[in-house]
Protein backbone atom coordinates (compact mmCIF):
# COMPACT_ATOMS: atom_id res chain seq x y z
CA UNK A 1 0.00 0.00 0.00
CA UNK A 2 1.23 3.44 -0.79
CA UNK A 3 1.48 5.76 2.13
CA UNK A 4 -0.86 8.72 2.09
CA UNK A 5 0.57 12.18 1.76
CA UNK A 6 1.89 13.44 4.98
CA UNK A 7 2.39 10.00 6.39
CA UNK A 8 6.01 10.46 7.10
CA UNK A 9 8.38 8.09 8.69
CA UNK A 10 9.05 8.24 12.31
CA UNK A 11 12.65 8.94 13.20
CA UNK A 12 14.63 5.78 13.48
CA UNK A 13 11.91 3.57 12.06
CA UNK A 14 11.96 1.56 8.93
CA UNK A 15 9.71 3.05 6.29
CA UNK A 16 8.69 -0.35 5.07
CA UNK A 17 7.83 -1.44 8.57
CA UNK A 18 5.80 1.68 9.16
CA UNK A 19 3.93 1.25 5.93
CA UNK A 20 3.19 -2.33 6.77
CA UNK A 21 1.86 -1.37 10.15
CA UNK A 22 -0.33 1.33 8.71
CA UNK A 23 -1.64 -1.15 6.21
CA UNK A 24 -2.42 -3.53 9.02
CA UNK A 25 -4.12 -0.73 10.88
CA UNK A 26 -6.25 0.16 7.90
CA UNK A 27 -7.12 -3.46 7.23
CA UNK A 28 -8.19 -3.82 10.82
CA UNK A 29 -10.77 -1.13 10.52
CA UNK A 30 -13.79 -2.51 12.29
CA UNK A 31 -16.90 -3.16 10.35
CA UNK A 32 -19.62 -1.25 12.00
CA UNK A 33 -22.99 -2.85 12.23
CA UNK A 34 -25.45 -0.05 11.65
CA UNK A 35 -27.48 0.97 14.60
CA UNK A 36 -30.89 -0.61 14.49
CA UNK A 37 -33.70 1.84 13.79
CA UNK A 38 -35.36 1.20 17.11
CA UNK A 39 -32.07 1.75 18.90
CA UNK A 40 -31.54 4.95 16.97
CA UNK A 41 -35.03 6.11 17.87
CA UNK A 42 -34.44 5.24 21.50
CA UNK A 43 -31.25 7.26 21.59
CA UNK A 44 -33.01 10.21 20.02
CA UNK A 45 -35.76 10.05 22.60
CA UNK A 46 -33.18 9.92 25.35
CA UNK A 47 -31.47 12.94 23.91
CA UNK A 48 -34.67 14.94 23.78
CA UNK A 49 -35.61 13.86 27.28
CA UNK A 50 -32.26 14.87 28.63
CA UNK A 51 -32.40 18.20 26.88
CA UNK A 52 -35.82 19.03 28.23
CA UNK A 53 -34.84 17.88 31.71
CA UNK A 54 -31.76 20.05 31.72
CA UNK A 55 -33.77 22.98 30.40
CA UNK A 56 -36.26 22.57 33.24
CA UNK A 57 -33.43 22.36 35.70
CA UNK A 58 -31.92 25.49 34.24
CA UNK A 59 -35.23 27.31 34.53
CA UNK A 60 -35.46 26.26 38.14
CA UNK A 61 -31.98 27.53 38.87
CA UNK A 62 -32.74 30.76 37.10
CA UNK A 63 -35.91 31.17 39.12
CA UNK A 64 -34.08 30.62 42.34
CA UNK A 65 -31.42 33.10 41.37
CA UNK A 66 -34.04 35.62 40.38
CA UNK A 67 -35.87 35.20 43.65
CA UNK A 68 -32.67 35.65 45.59
CA UNK A 69 -31.79 38.70 43.55
CA UNK A 70 -35.17 40.26 44.16
CA UNK A 71 -34.91 39.57 47.84
CA UNK A 72 -31.47 41.09 47.92
CA UNK A 73 -32.58 44.18 46.02
CA UNK A 74 -35.59 44.70 48.23
CA UNK A 75 -33.39 44.45 51.27
CA UNK A 76 -30.83 46.80 49.81
CA UNK A 77 -33.47 49.33 48.84
CA UNK A 78 -34.99 49.25 52.28
CA UNK A 79 -31.56 49.79 53.77
CA UNK A 80 -30.88 52.65 51.41
CA UNK A 81 -34.13 54.37 52.27
CA UNK A 82 -33.40 54.02 55.92
CA UNK A 83 -29.97 55.52 55.50
CA UNK A 84 -31.35 58.37 53.48
CA UNK A 85 -34.00 59.20 55.96
CA UNK A 86 -31.34 59.37 58.60
CA UNK A 87 -29.06 61.42 56.41
CA UNK A 88 -31.75 63.89 55.44
CA UNK A 89 -32.31 64.77 59.03
CA UNK A 90 -28.68 65.16 59.83
CA UNK A 91 -27.49 67.16 56.86
CA UNK A 92 -28.35 70.58 55.62
CA UNK A 93 -29.34 69.84 52.08
CA UNK A 94 -29.89 72.76 49.76
CA UNK A 95 -33.36 73.55 48.70
CA UNK A 96 -34.07 74.14 45.08
CA UNK A 97 -37.02 75.69 43.45
CA UNK A 98 -38.07 75.05 39.95
CA UNK A 99 -37.01 77.52 37.39
CA UNK A 100 -34.53 79.10 39.64
CA UNK A 101 -30.88 78.94 40.00
CA UNK A 102 -30.23 77.21 43.17
CA UNK A 103 -27.63 78.45 45.44
CA UNK A 104 -24.66 76.20 45.47
CA UNK A 105 -24.36 74.18 48.54
CA UNK A 106 -21.66 75.56 50.69
CA UNK A 107 -18.40 75.51 48.81
CA UNK A 108 -19.27 72.85 46.41
CA UNK A 109 -18.69 75.02 43.42
CA UNK A 110 -21.88 73.73 42.04
CA UNK A 111 -24.95 75.36 40.77
CA UNK A 112 -27.93 73.63 39.46
CA UNK A 113 -30.49 75.13 37.26
CA UNK A 114 -33.77 73.44 36.84
CA UNK A 115 -36.11 74.44 34.10
CA UNK A 116 -39.64 75.33 34.79
CA UNK A 117 -41.86 72.49 35.61
CA UNK A 118 -39.11 70.09 36.25
CA UNK A 119 -38.16 68.51 39.45
CA UNK A 120 -35.32 70.16 41.15
CA UNK A 121 -32.35 68.02 41.27
CA UNK A 122 -29.10 68.40 42.86
CA UNK A 123 -26.07 67.00 41.27
CA UNK A 124 -24.70 65.57 44.38
CA UNK A 125 -27.71 63.54 44.87
CA UNK A 126 -26.93 60.01 44.01
CA UNK A 127 -27.90 59.02 40.55
CA UNK A 128 -29.25 55.82 39.30
CA UNK A 129 -26.60 53.42 38.25
CA UNK A 130 -27.83 53.68 34.70
CA UNK A 131 -27.41 57.40 34.77
CA UNK A 132 -24.05 57.16 36.34
CA UNK A 133 -23.04 54.68 33.70
CA UNK A 134 -24.19 56.99 30.99
CA UNK A 135 -22.30 59.79 32.49
CA UNK A 136 -19.13 57.88 32.51
CA UNK A 137 -19.59 57.35 28.86
CA UNK A 138 -20.47 60.86 27.95
CA UNK A 139 -18.98 63.19 30.39
CA UNK A 140 -15.95 64.94 29.44
CA UNK A 141 -13.65 64.76 32.25
CA UNK A 142 -13.52 65.26 35.88
CA UNK A 143 -10.53 67.06 37.01
CA UNK A 144 -8.55 68.07 39.91
CA UNK A 145 -8.16 64.93 41.84
CA UNK A 146 -5.23 63.46 40.06
CA UNK A 147 -7.03 60.25 39.59
CA UNK A 148 -7.55 58.63 36.26
CA UNK A 149 -10.19 60.35 34.34
CA UNK A 150 -13.24 58.52 33.23
CA UNK A 151 -12.87 57.92 29.58
CA UNK A 152 -15.67 59.25 27.58
CA UNK A 153 -16.93 57.40 24.63
CA UNK A 154 -18.63 60.01 22.66
CA UNK A 155 -18.73 57.94 19.55
CA UNK A 156 -21.04 55.43 21.08
CA UNK A 157 -24.58 56.38 21.87
CA UNK A 158 -25.14 56.34 25.57
CA UNK A 159 -28.18 55.00 27.18
CA UNK A 160 -31.04 57.43 27.39
CA UNK A 161 -31.28 59.32 30.58
CA UNK A 162 -34.72 60.15 31.63
CA UNK A 163 -36.89 62.40 29.58
CA UNK A 164 -36.32 65.68 31.25
CA UNK A 165 -34.72 68.83 30.24
CA UNK A 166 -32.45 69.67 33.00
CA UNK A 167 -29.47 71.81 33.39
CA UNK A 168 -26.76 71.51 35.75
CA UNK A 169 -23.99 73.92 35.81
CA UNK A 170 -20.87 73.44 37.63
CA UNK A 171 -19.05 76.57 38.04
CA UNK A 172 -15.47 77.09 38.78
CA UNK A 173 -12.92 75.23 40.61
CA UNK A 174 -12.59 71.92 39.00
CA UNK A 175 -11.06 70.56 42.09
CA UNK A 176 -14.29 71.14 43.82
CA UNK A 177 -16.34 69.38 41.28
CA UNK A 178 -17.74 66.28 42.76
CA UNK A 179 -16.21 63.22 41.37
CA UNK A 180 -18.10 60.44 39.76
CA UNK A 181 -18.14 58.06 42.64
CA UNK A 182 -20.32 60.50 44.42
CA UNK A 183 -22.96 59.95 41.84
CA UNK A 184 -23.19 56.29 42.32
CA UNK A 185 -26.41 55.12 43.71
CA UNK A 186 -29.98 55.76 43.02
CA UNK A 187 -32.20 58.72 42.58
CA UNK A 188 -35.59 57.77 43.79
CA UNK A 189 -37.32 61.00 42.95
CA UNK A 190 -37.03 61.32 39.27
CA UNK A 191 -34.24 59.06 38.24
CA UNK A 192 -32.96 61.53 35.76
CA UNK A 193 -30.49 64.18 35.93
CA UNK A 194 -27.88 65.62 34.07
CA UNK A 195 -24.63 66.63 35.13
CA UNK A 196 -22.06 68.65 33.83
CA UNK A 197 -18.52 68.97 34.63
CA UNK A 198 -16.46 72.00 34.36
CA UNK A 199 -12.97 72.19 33.34
CA UNK A 200 -10.42 74.86 33.05
CA UNK A 201 -7.96 72.28 32.15
CA UNK A 202 -5.17 73.41 29.93
CA UNK A 203 -3.57 70.09 29.52
CA UNK A 204 -5.25 69.51 26.28
CA UNK A 205 -8.03 67.19 25.68
CA UNK A 206 -8.21 63.77 24.30
CA UNK A 207 -11.84 63.72 23.49
CA UNK A 208 -12.36 66.66 21.28
CA UNK A 209 -12.58 69.41 23.75
CA UNK A 210 -11.02 72.49 22.48
CA UNK A 211 -7.36 72.28 23.40
CA UNK A 212 -7.17 75.79 24.52
CA UNK A 213 -10.22 76.70 26.37
CA UNK A 214 -10.13 80.35 25.79
CA UNK A 215 -12.91 82.48 24.57
CA UNK A 216 -12.30 81.83 20.93
CA UNK A 217 -12.42 78.15 21.19
CA UNK A 218 -15.52 77.40 23.02
CA UNK A 219 -17.74 77.05 20.04
CA UNK A 220 -15.39 75.13 17.92
CA UNK A 221 -17.26 72.61 15.91
CA UNK A 222 -15.28 69.80 17.34
CA UNK A 223 -16.76 70.58 20.66
CA UNK A 224 -20.14 69.98 19.25
CA UNK A 225 -19.16 67.04 17.19
CA UNK A 226 -17.56 65.12 19.91
CA UNK A 227 -19.41 66.37 22.89
CA UNK A 228 -22.82 66.60 21.44
CA UNK A 229 -24.78 67.58 24.43
CA UNK A 230 -22.36 70.00 25.83
CA UNK A 231 -22.07 73.69 25.47
CA UNK A 232 -19.47 75.68 27.20
CA UNK A 233 -20.59 79.04 28.29
CA UNK A 234 -17.50 80.55 29.60
CA UNK A 235 -15.01 82.10 27.29
CA UNK A 236 -12.53 82.41 30.07
CA UNK A 237 -10.24 80.20 31.94
CA UNK A 238 -12.91 79.13 34.25
CA UNK A 239 -15.57 77.37 32.43
CA UNK A 240 -19.02 76.38 32.90
CA UNK A 241 -19.97 73.40 30.90
CA UNK A 242 -23.53 72.88 30.27
CA UNK A 243 -25.11 69.64 29.46
CA UNK A 244 -28.60 69.33 28.35
CA UNK A 245 -30.75 66.35 28.23
CA UNK A 246 -33.65 66.66 25.99
CA UNK A 247 -36.03 63.80 25.81
CA UNK A 248 -33.64 61.23 24.69
CA UNK A 249 -30.15 60.04 24.42
CA UNK A 250 -27.41 62.46 25.06
CA UNK A 251 -25.89 61.94 21.71
CA UNK A 252 -28.84 63.03 19.66
CA UNK A 253 -26.99 66.19 19.06
CA UNK A 254 -28.45 67.08 15.76
CA UNK A 255 -31.96 67.07 17.01
CA UNK A 256 -31.23 68.50 20.38
CA UNK A 257 -31.90 72.15 20.93
CA UNK A 258 -28.89 72.94 22.90
CA UNK A 259 -29.47 76.21 24.51
CA UNK A 260 -31.96 77.25 21.99
CA UNK A 261 -30.89 80.28 20.18
CA UNK A 262 -27.29 79.92 20.99
CA UNK A 263 -25.41 79.78 17.81
CA UNK A 264 -21.75 79.50 17.21
CA UNK A 265 -21.26 83.20 17.33
CA UNK A 266 -22.06 83.12 20.96
CA UNK A 267 -24.10 86.19 20.54
CA UNK A 268 -26.82 84.93 22.73
CA UNK A 269 -24.53 83.76 25.38
CA UNK A 270 -23.22 86.52 27.48
CA UNK A 271 -19.60 86.51 28.19
CA UNK A 272 -18.77 85.37 31.57
CA UNK A 273 -16.49 87.48 33.57
CA UNK A 274 -14.07 86.16 36.01
CA UNK A 275 -13.91 87.43 39.47
CA UNK A 276 -10.88 88.39 41.43
CA UNK A 277 -10.12 84.83 42.13
CA UNK A 278 -9.87 84.08 38.47
CA UNK A 279 -13.06 82.13 38.29
CA UNK A 280 -16.44 82.89 37.06
CA UNK A 281 -18.71 83.55 39.88
CA UNK A 282 -21.67 81.39 40.36
CA UNK A 283 -24.01 84.27 40.12
CA UNK A 284 -22.54 85.26 36.82
CA UNK A 285 -23.10 81.86 35.39
CA UNK A 286 -26.53 81.72 36.76
CA UNK A 287 -27.47 85.04 35.31
CA UNK A 288 -26.09 84.03 31.98
CA UNK A 289 -28.22 81.04 31.88
CA UNK A 290 -31.25 82.94 32.87
CA UNK A 291 -30.47 85.52 30.31
CA UNK A 292 -30.77 83.06 27.50
CA UNK A 293 -33.90 84.09 25.74
CA UNK A 294 -35.31 80.69 25.07
CA UNK A 295 -34.16 79.19 28.22
CA UNK A 296 -37.54 78.11 29.37
CA UNK A 297 -38.35 76.49 26.10
CA UNK A 298 -35.45 74.15 26.17
Amino acid at each position, binding site marked *: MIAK*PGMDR*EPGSSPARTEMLIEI*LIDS*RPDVTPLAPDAAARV*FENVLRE*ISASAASRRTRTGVRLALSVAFCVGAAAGMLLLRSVASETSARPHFVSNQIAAPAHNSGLAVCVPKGMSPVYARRPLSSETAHSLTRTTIRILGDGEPEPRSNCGAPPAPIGGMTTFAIFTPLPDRVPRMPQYEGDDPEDGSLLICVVSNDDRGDTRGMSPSLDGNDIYKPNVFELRPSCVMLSPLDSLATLFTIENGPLCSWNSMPILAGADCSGSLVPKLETGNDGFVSRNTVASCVLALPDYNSI
Partner: protein
Amino acid sequence: MDTYLTAGTYPATDRAAELEWLHAARSGEQWALDELYRRHYSQIYALCYRILGRSEDAEDAMQAAFVHAFRELPGFRGDCLARTWLYRIATNEAINALRKRKRSVSDAEIESSALAPDDAPAVHRKIAVTAALDELRPDHHVILVLRYWEDLSYDEICSVLGLSMPTVKMRLSRARGEFRRRYGDEP
Protein backbone atom coordinates in the same frame (compact mmCIF):
# COMPACT_ATOMS: atom_id res chain seq x y z
CA MET B 1 -17.05 6.80 2.52
CA ASP B 2 -17.68 10.34 1.57
CA THR B 3 -15.29 12.57 3.34
CA TYR B 4 -16.25 16.11 2.56
CA LEU B 5 -16.36 17.50 6.00
CA THR B 6 -15.37 21.01 5.16
CA ALA B 7 -17.78 23.52 3.79
CA GLY B 8 -15.70 24.30 0.75
CA THR B 9 -16.13 20.86 -0.75
CA TYR B 10 -19.73 20.37 0.17
CA PRO B 11 -22.30 20.59 -2.61
CA ALA B 12 -23.77 24.03 -2.57
CA THR B 13 -27.38 22.89 -2.66
CA ASP B 14 -26.88 20.55 0.26
CA ARG B 15 -25.06 23.27 2.11
CA ALA B 16 -27.89 25.72 1.54
CA ALA B 17 -30.43 23.18 2.68
CA GLU B 18 -28.38 22.43 5.73
CA LEU B 19 -28.18 26.07 6.68
CA GLU B 20 -31.92 26.32 6.30
CA TRP B 21 -32.80 23.50 8.63
CA LEU B 22 -29.98 24.37 10.98
CA HIS B 23 -31.60 27.74 11.41
CA ALA B 24 -34.81 26.03 12.43
CA ALA B 25 -32.93 23.65 14.69
CA ARG B 26 -31.32 26.56 16.50
CA SER B 27 -34.79 27.76 17.31
CA GLY B 28 -35.50 24.39 18.85
CA GLU B 29 -37.93 23.21 16.21
CA GLN B 30 -38.46 19.54 16.63
CA TRP B 31 -38.48 18.59 12.99
CA ALA B 32 -35.14 20.29 12.47
CA LEU B 33 -33.57 18.53 15.44
CA ASP B 34 -34.91 15.32 14.06
CA GLU B 35 -33.35 16.16 10.72
CA LEU B 36 -30.00 16.86 12.30
CA TYR B 37 -30.09 13.56 14.10
CA ARG B 38 -31.40 11.55 11.18
CA ARG B 39 -28.76 12.83 8.82
CA HIS B 40 -25.82 12.20 11.03
CA TYR B 41 -26.45 9.60 13.66
CA SER B 42 -25.13 6.66 11.68
CA GLN B 43 -21.82 8.37 10.96
CA ILE B 44 -21.49 9.56 14.50
CA TYR B 45 -22.27 6.12 15.75
CA ALA B 46 -19.67 4.58 13.46
CA LEU B 47 -17.08 7.07 14.59
CA CYS B 48 -17.79 6.37 18.23
CA TYR B 49 -17.76 2.67 17.60
CA ARG B 50 -14.41 2.79 15.86
CA ILE B 51 -12.90 4.78 18.66
CA LEU B 52 -14.48 2.89 21.52
CA GLY B 53 -14.83 -0.54 20.01
CA ARG B 54 -18.04 -1.48 21.79
CA SER B 55 -21.54 -0.88 20.58
CA GLU B 56 -22.85 0.03 24.02
CA ASP B 57 -20.12 2.55 24.55
CA ALA B 58 -20.65 3.91 21.08
CA GLU B 59 -24.34 4.38 21.75
CA ASP B 60 -23.64 6.15 25.00
CA ALA B 61 -21.06 8.40 23.42
CA MET B 62 -23.35 9.18 20.53
CA GLN B 63 -26.16 10.04 22.89
CA ALA B 64 -23.89 12.28 24.94
CA ALA B 65 -22.65 13.91 21.76
CA PHE B 66 -26.13 14.73 20.53
CA VAL B 67 -27.19 16.03 23.93
CA HIS B 68 -24.15 18.27 23.90
CA ALA B 69 -24.83 19.30 20.32
CA PHE B 70 -28.48 20.16 20.88
CA ARG B 71 -27.58 22.23 23.89
CA GLU B 72 -24.91 24.10 22.02
CA LEU B 73 -26.88 24.45 18.84
CA PRO B 74 -27.92 28.07 19.42
CA GLY B 75 -24.26 28.98 19.55
CA PHE B 76 -23.34 27.09 16.42
CA ARG B 77 -22.83 29.72 13.76
CA GLY B 78 -22.62 27.36 10.83
CA ASP B 79 -19.13 28.37 9.84
CA CYS B 80 -18.36 24.73 9.30
CA LEU B 81 -20.55 21.86 8.31
CA ALA B 82 -22.83 20.38 10.87
CA ARG B 83 -21.11 17.09 10.34
CA THR B 84 -17.71 18.54 11.13
CA TRP B 85 -19.14 20.13 14.22
CA LEU B 86 -20.77 16.89 15.28
CA TYR B 87 -17.58 14.96 14.61
CA ARG B 88 -15.76 17.35 16.89
CA ILE B 89 -18.26 16.91 19.67
CA ALA B 90 -18.46 13.16 19.26
CA THR B 91 -14.69 12.85 19.19
CA ASN B 92 -14.43 14.73 22.44
CA GLU B 93 -17.10 12.55 23.99
CA ALA B 94 -15.29 9.46 22.81
CA ILE B 95 -12.00 10.72 24.18
CA ASN B 96 -13.68 11.33 27.51
CA ALA B 97 -15.06 7.83 27.44
CA LEU B 98 -11.65 6.43 26.58
CA ARG B 99 -10.13 8.19 29.50
CA LYS B 100 -12.74 6.85 31.83
CA ARG B 101 -12.21 3.27 31.09
CA LYS B 102 -9.52 0.93 30.10
CA ARG B 103 -10.90 -1.46 27.66
CA SER B 104 -9.86 -5.05 28.16
CA VAL B 105 -8.57 -7.18 25.35
CA SER B 106 -11.03 -9.88 26.17
CA ASP B 107 -13.91 -7.55 25.37
CA ALA B 108 -12.37 -6.77 22.05
CA GLU B 109 -11.86 -10.41 21.41
CA ILE B 110 -15.49 -11.22 21.97
CA GLU B 111 -16.80 -8.60 19.59
CA SER B 112 -14.17 -9.14 16.95
CA SER B 113 -14.70 -12.87 17.03
CA ALA B 114 -18.37 -12.37 16.58
CA LEU B 115 -17.75 -10.22 13.55
CA ALA B 116 -15.41 -12.61 11.81
CA PRO B 117 -15.78 -16.10 13.16
CA ASP B 118 -14.28 -17.81 10.14
CA ASP B 119 -11.12 -15.83 9.81
CA ALA B 120 -9.02 -16.58 12.80
CA PRO B 121 -5.79 -14.84 11.67
CA ALA B 122 -7.67 -11.71 10.77
CA VAL B 123 -9.46 -11.80 14.08
CA HIS B 124 -6.24 -12.14 15.97
CA ARG B 125 -4.73 -9.30 14.04
CA LYS B 126 -7.69 -7.10 14.75
CA ILE B 127 -7.48 -7.96 18.38
CA ALA B 128 -3.83 -7.08 18.42
CA VAL B 129 -4.44 -3.81 16.61
CA THR B 130 -7.28 -2.94 18.94
CA ALA B 131 -5.20 -3.79 21.95
CA ALA B 132 -2.35 -1.65 20.66
CA LEU B 133 -4.69 1.24 20.00
CA ASP B 134 -6.17 0.94 23.45
CA GLU B 135 -2.76 1.27 24.97
CA LEU B 136 -2.16 4.53 23.22
CA ARG B 137 -2.88 7.87 24.71
CA PRO B 138 -6.48 8.79 23.90
CA ASP B 139 -5.49 11.66 21.64
CA HIS B 140 -3.12 9.39 19.71
CA HIS B 141 -5.74 6.71 19.54
CA VAL B 142 -8.31 9.13 18.19
CA ILE B 143 -6.12 10.72 15.58
CA LEU B 144 -5.20 7.34 14.14
CA VAL B 145 -8.85 6.39 13.98
CA LEU B 146 -9.74 9.65 12.30
CA ARG B 147 -6.97 9.32 9.77
CA TYR B 148 -6.96 5.64 8.90
CA TRP B 149 -10.38 4.39 9.79
CA GLU B 150 -12.51 7.44 9.20
CA ASP B 151 -10.28 8.35 6.28
CA LEU B 152 -10.33 12.03 7.03
CA SER B 153 -7.91 14.34 5.31
CA TYR B 154 -5.45 16.39 7.27
CA ASP B 155 -7.61 19.46 6.80
CA GLU B 156 -10.62 17.65 8.11
CA ILE B 157 -8.72 16.40 11.12
CA CYS B 158 -7.65 19.96 11.82
CA SER B 159 -11.28 21.03 11.76
CA VAL B 160 -12.53 18.20 13.89
CA LEU B 161 -9.83 18.44 16.51
CA GLY B 162 -9.51 22.19 16.36
CA LEU B 163 -5.79 21.96 15.83
CA SER B 164 -3.36 23.55 13.45
CA MET B 165 -1.90 21.60 10.60
CA PRO B 166 1.60 21.32 12.11
CA THR B 167 0.11 20.09 15.35
CA VAL B 168 -1.96 17.50 13.57
CA LYS B 169 1.05 16.27 11.60
CA MET B 170 3.18 16.11 14.68
CA ARG B 171 0.53 14.32 16.68
CA LEU B 172 -0.12 11.86 13.90
CA SER B 173 3.56 11.13 13.55
CA ARG B 174 3.89 10.50 17.24
CA ALA B 175 0.75 8.40 17.27
CA ARG B 176 2.13 6.23 14.50
CA GLY B 177 5.37 5.86 16.35
CA GLU B 178 3.61 4.89 19.52
CA PHE B 179 1.37 2.50 17.66
CA ARG B 180 4.38 0.95 16.03
CA ARG B 181 6.01 0.38 19.35
CA ARG B 182 2.89 -1.10 20.85
CA TYR B 183 1.90 -3.22 17.92
CA GLY B 184 5.43 -4.01 16.87
CA ASP B 185 6.07 -5.66 20.18
CA GLU B 186 3.33 -8.10 19.45
CA PRO B 187 4.51 -11.48 18.26
